[in-house]
Each structure stands twice: as C-alpha cells, then as structure tokens.
C-alpha cells in the first residue's frame, strides 16, 4: 500500500461492521446502474430456464415459479461502485429449489446467468447453492421495480451486486468457467466484497 493522500481525513470514522472495505452506506438510496436499455417484460411472458450440464433441463413460467416454496432474504447488498444498502428484504424462490429439480451433473462447477437483455454474469456453483442465492420478484413486500430488475432478478447478496443479474431468464450450468458481461470488461470473476474483488487480478 502506498502512503496516505495529502490532506485526506476520510469522513466515516465509525465504520459500521456491516460495511465491507471501501464501501459506504447508501442509506435509503438504491442507485440504478445498468449497461443496456431497461426491458419491459410482462410477467405472463417471463420464464426462467435452467439448462446446460443438468440431467433434466426445465423451464418455469411466472405462475409455476410462484407455486414453488417461497424463500426470503433479509440482509445487506453491496455494489462494486462502492455503495452498500443495509437491511434489504427480497422474496422469491431459492436457487437450490430450481437446481434440485434439474439435478446438475457432478462436473457442473459453474453457472452462467443470462438476462432477457442478453446480459450475462458467471458464478461458481457453490456460490449459488446452500441458501445463498435466490430468484426474486418481491422487494419490501411489493413487486420488484423494473429498474431494479423486475419482474424477476437473480439475487446473490454475498457477492458484488453485478452478479445479481436483473431481468433474469436463464441459468446455464457449465463445466468450465466463462466470463460474463462485466467480467469480460475487466471485473472480477468471483466478486467477493469482503475481499474487495472488484477487478480482474484483485
């Protein structure tokens, strides 16, 4: 680490222990950051497909997904652009539920998440299983707003939020890792906020 920046004191001396390094508390704000036009997706045309290295690929419609056991996340989210948001509340279905149905093969080690817009992001399987990832359509008890990925987005809150693909439509199980959209553009393949894995090489 280089020396201190001349004259920089830093404001937030009492760090909230929930804040990963280099993050700040966005409070009630929830910034919107996307690389593509916001798509208008009617719930009745939305579906989620899980395919690739699985024994039984499957697709769930809006109604079918809602018939699965409901699962919630209450906790914090962290964006690579350095904002964090505490105490969020999302609801939908656990990715475990979807994977249990399609039965990934033993050599399926990675997942590529794909959005309706063509946005992609890659994740190791162990980071979307064990109750750590969801497909969500509800925020704070209301339908997920379109600008935040509604009607349905991926939620992987223990990783930087670009991994939580908005407007999710597909999860593809892979044998080998492949970079997604931001990962091809210099961002980290895993993106653990507690290890500040922002860019490739971090």
């Amino acid at each position: 680490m280089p020396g201190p920046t001349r004259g920089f004191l830093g404001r937030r001396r009492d760090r909230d222990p929930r804040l990963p390094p280099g993050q700040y508390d966005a409070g009630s704000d929830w910034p919107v950051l996307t690389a593509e036009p916001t798509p208008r997706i009617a719930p009745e045309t939305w579906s989620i497909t899980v395919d690739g290295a699985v024994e039984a690929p499957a697709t769930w419609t809006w109604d079918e997904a809602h018939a699965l056991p409901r699962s919630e996340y209450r906790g914090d989210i962290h964006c690579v652009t350095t904002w964090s948001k505490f105490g969020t509340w999302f609801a939908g279905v656990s990715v475990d539920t979807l994977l249990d149905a399609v039965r990934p093969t033993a050599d399926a080690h990675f997942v590529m998440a794909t959005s309706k817009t063509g946005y992609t992001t890659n994740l190791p399987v162990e980071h979307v299983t064990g109750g750590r990832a969801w497909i969500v359509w509800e925020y704070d008890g209301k339908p997920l707003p379109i600008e935040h990925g509604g009607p349905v987005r991926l939620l992987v809150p223990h990783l930087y939020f670009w991994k939580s693909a908005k407007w999710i439509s597909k999860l593809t199980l892979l044998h080998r890792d492949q970079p997604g959209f931001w990962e091809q553009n210099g961002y980290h393949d895993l993106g653990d906020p507690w290890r500040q894995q922002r860019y490739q090489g971090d």
Partner: protein
Amino acid sequence: MTEDAAVLGAGVPDAPAGGWRTATVSGVRRPIQRSVQLRLDVHDRIDHLPGQHYVVRLTAEDGYTAQRSYSVASAPGDPLVELFVERLDDGEVSTHLADVVEPGDELEVRGPIGGWFVWDGTAPALLVAGGAGVVPFVSMLRHARAIGRDDLLRIAVSARTMAQLPYAEELVAAGALVVLTREQYGIRPAGRLRAEELLPLWEEGQTAYVCGSAAFAEAATQLLVASGRPAASIRVERFGPSGGPA
C-alpha cells in the same frame, strides 16, 4: 420482449486495462461551479479507449481508504489523463478532489477500466449525454478530431443551463445539439430532450451511447427505443452518486 436478446457485449473486442498506478497532479481547473478538472500524469500509463474510466483511491493516515470511478475526458493521445469530477456535497472523494487537491499532489489511480462503453474511432456513433455524462463523449470527440474522424460522431447534450454544461464551448464548437431544460438556448425554449430532436442525428449503422444520471439515461434510452432503434444498438452508462456497473 418475448425473445431473449443476443448475448450483450458479444463480439465487442477486449479493451485495455491497467492496474494501480501513481499519478502526479499536473493541473487543476474549475471552469464550472461544483466541479473540478484534474490533469494527471499517470506513471507507466496504459492508454485508454475513449469512454473508459479510472478509479481514484484516497488513503487517510490510519489506512482508511475511499475510492470512486471517474470518466476520462482526454483523448488517448493526450500525454496527460484528464478526469472531470462533479463535486457532491456529501461526496467523500469528490469534495477532497475539488477542494483539497493541488498541482504536485500524488494520487493513487487505477485504469483504464471498462470495455463496453467505449468507442474505438472506427464506426458511426450517436452520443447522448445529460450533465456530467458528457465527459466520456468529450474523450471520444477529442479522439475523433485527433484521428480526423469527427464525421463519425453525432452529439446531443442536455443540461439545466449553459453554465452547468461541462465542456460547453468544446461541444458547441463540435456542432452538438444542445438541450437546456431550465433556460432558452437560441430559438429553442427550455425543455427536455424530445425524440424528434434526435431524428436528424440518426445515421445508418450507428451505435448509440447514452450517459447521464439514472433518470436522464432512462428517459433518453426510452426515447431511442420508442423511435425504433434496436435495444441491442444502445449502450448505456448511468451514474448516481457512484459510477460503473451495479
């Protein structure tokens, strides 16, 4: 949308990327209120593509750090890297850059970063910016002029007033469509950007780049989509208190 779109970013070539560097502040200018232009001599610099950004990291005596992303305004051929920083009253990094930094200071920077919101100077582009969203487009414009291809760029910029438009003179000189929402400009009354104002800027094979606040970017993008421009031809960079991807 019922069919899934093609993979976003497929076929977009890799862009240059650089790690952490030390930069010496060479110039500090404040041509418009509540902002600062920093001219940086980045040691062992990797040249950027227009549209890429840098991260600036500040370190306190006790090791506490804060970092934010800023778009580059300079062309790749410029010996210095120019960052434009909008000063946010509660901005921990931007207040330091705007109020404290002086020529001769050293700053820790990382860049260039980003491979999507870039223009390599070879294809027609429509650039639509709100406020400080003009910054990556200034880099594109300067690069276009340097390589003699400013014919490829069509530019529309929106600000509240002329005094609040960064790089206003340069943009006006380049023939940019200027939209002011709070004051008249020439014969144009104050008001938001309209779809019909963008129509004359259309050209076959253009990629559209939209940069601005989340609200501006959303509105401008929807104008383009509603006018029949394919979503796949539109690249968006939104910034709020922070920039870059979510």
